[in-house]
């Protein structure tokens, strides 16, 4: 015979296990088709990016339960329902192709507890479009987004680690800006038509760009916004930033392919097997490394 107290205790323990705010766990993120109209969140089951087959994408997927499957990048980065979001400590894997249109800059700051450890990646075979422009955006956010950075990493500690993998970032003023002290690895990403910078490393950050392709920085054809890139550099290291660009391609930037203006000098930035062509300038003030 089980006592009522034991039953209550067991129920409490089950509830705790079900709702605990875990750290460093993975979550999944679905694609968005924005069809038939931008902002669509209810779709045919299994269609239009709906990986889990519940007929929801976007914001509707965010709030449908503590299933560790999200529809927007902002919600996946946050605490989520019952602690199911990564809360700046975990991995976000995008499992179906689609458009990801944040309302503003996606910010990755200091985690509420402990270091910021964030990986955002699209699965192989999936294209995750982080584009500033969404035709028909009912929120009217196209002008705002084209004048800001797509992703801002301002986590402050040297033990903060952020990885971006297999993402496509287009039409922002700055594709990714890093201003804190974090270590950021940009792996197998594609940048196109970002106006001023594709990647801008500042503060005391350490930023590595690996096996990525950066094309047409400084060239953008937006409507109702300035399309004059200043300076139109692909990768820029400033203040006390450091890092490396390796096994990457940089084509047709309006200005330099890689510029090192870090106060730490030439040895702050290394490059290895970087293919450049059609840029306004080459690789400036960085140190080549070989094998």
């Amino acid at each position, binding site marked *: 015979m089980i006592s009522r107290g034991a039953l209550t205790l067991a129920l409490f323990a089950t509830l705790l296990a079900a709702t605990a705010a875990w*750290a*460093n766990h993975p*979550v999944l993120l679905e694609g968005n088709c924005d069809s038939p109209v931008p902002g669509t969140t209810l779709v045919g089951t299994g269609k239009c990016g709906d*990986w889990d087959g519940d007929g929801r994408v976007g914001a509707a997927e965010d709030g449908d339960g503590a299933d560790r499957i999200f529809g927007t990048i902002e919600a996946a980065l946050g605490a989520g329902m019952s602690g199911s979001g990564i809360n700046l400590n975990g991995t976000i894997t995008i499992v179906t192709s689609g458009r990801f249109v944040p309302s503003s800059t996606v910010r990755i700051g200091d985690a509420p507890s402990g270091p910021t450890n964030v*990986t955002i990646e699209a699965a*192989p075979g999936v294209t995750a479009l982080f584009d500033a422009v969404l035709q028909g955006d009912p929120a009217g956010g196209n002008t705002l987004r084209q004048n800001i950075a797509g992703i801002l990493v301002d986590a402050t500690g040297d033990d903060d680690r952020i990885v971006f993998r297999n993402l496509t970032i287009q039409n922002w003023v700055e594709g990714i800006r890093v201003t804190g002290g974090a270590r950021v690895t940009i*792996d197998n990403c594609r940048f196109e038509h970002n106006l001023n910078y594709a990647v801008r490393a500042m503060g005391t950050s350490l930023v590595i760009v690996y096996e990525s392709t950066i094309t047409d920085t400084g060239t953008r054809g937006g409507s109702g916004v300035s399309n004059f890139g200043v300076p139109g550099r692909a990768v820029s290291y400033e203040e006390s930033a450091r890092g490396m660009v390796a096994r990457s391609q940089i084509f047709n930037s309006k200005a330099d392919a890689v510029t090192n203006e870090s106060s730490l000098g030439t040895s702050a930035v290394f490059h*290895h097997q970087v293919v450049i062509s059609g840029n306004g300038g080459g690789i400036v003030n960085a140190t080549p490394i070989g*094998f």
Partner: protein
Amino acid sequence: MQGFRIATSLLLLLCAGAALANHPVIVEGNCDSPTFGTTVLGVAGTCGDFDGDGRIGSAEDTDGADRIFGTLTAAIGPGTGAAAGTGANLNGTVLIAASGRFVLPTSLLIGDAAGPTLLTIEAAPGAIALIDAVAQGDTLANNNFRQNIAGIHITASNVEDRIVLRNLTFRNWSEAIRVNGGARVVIENCTFEHNLDYAVRVMGSAHVMVNGSRMFDTGSRFGVTVTSTGAGTAIQFEGTSTGLVSKTAIFNSTGTAINNASSNGASAVRFFQVIVGGNGNGIINATPVAF
């Protein structure tokens, strides 16, 4: 005529039930939605359900002799229930055909088969196989247990044992892959992040080759109630082990990128086109090779 029919039926039954060796099997993804451990889906063909029968996980493991499994543990075994005799049984290929989470109850043990252990575990191009120690929704005890052990533990003891791990993603283990037998192991195009002590630890007399892989942020992990301090070495060779690391990127390990502590000396471990950056130490006691 009746005798002929009986003989034919018997032959067909034998073929259907025989425990064949060195055959391929398929593993589906897992979405763990709407709750952790979900095995029966609301909509067939979604949520990793490759064969469209509405089952994933352990329900897929035993639903028939279809050579399609839902867990890695079952797929590398002999198969049980209605799937008896259809598993790889440590001699065959395990192909992960759909993206998803693969939460192991404990280390995936690859030991000695009846003959040589000849096992390949690979995710198909376009699928992402997340082998993460942490699963939000599982119990604290289970999560902490996994974070303190190896993800895959290869103990196959003989030099003719051959194991290939391809296109897999490992996160949050104490050691993602430990090899301490005598096998020859190839780790190809795998991704390792936030493993605490080692991404790959080679012991015994094993020979391990790491090719085309990424190892980021080893030693940097922040779990709920587990230690966050570890060796932080991406690849470690010990005992009398030997190996090669080629065309691999190792970034931001808190310890060493490659450490060769094998008693066979510097010539036991070779490296070719390994990019290192942001690690506590670089490549120690290994020999560069050129081709």
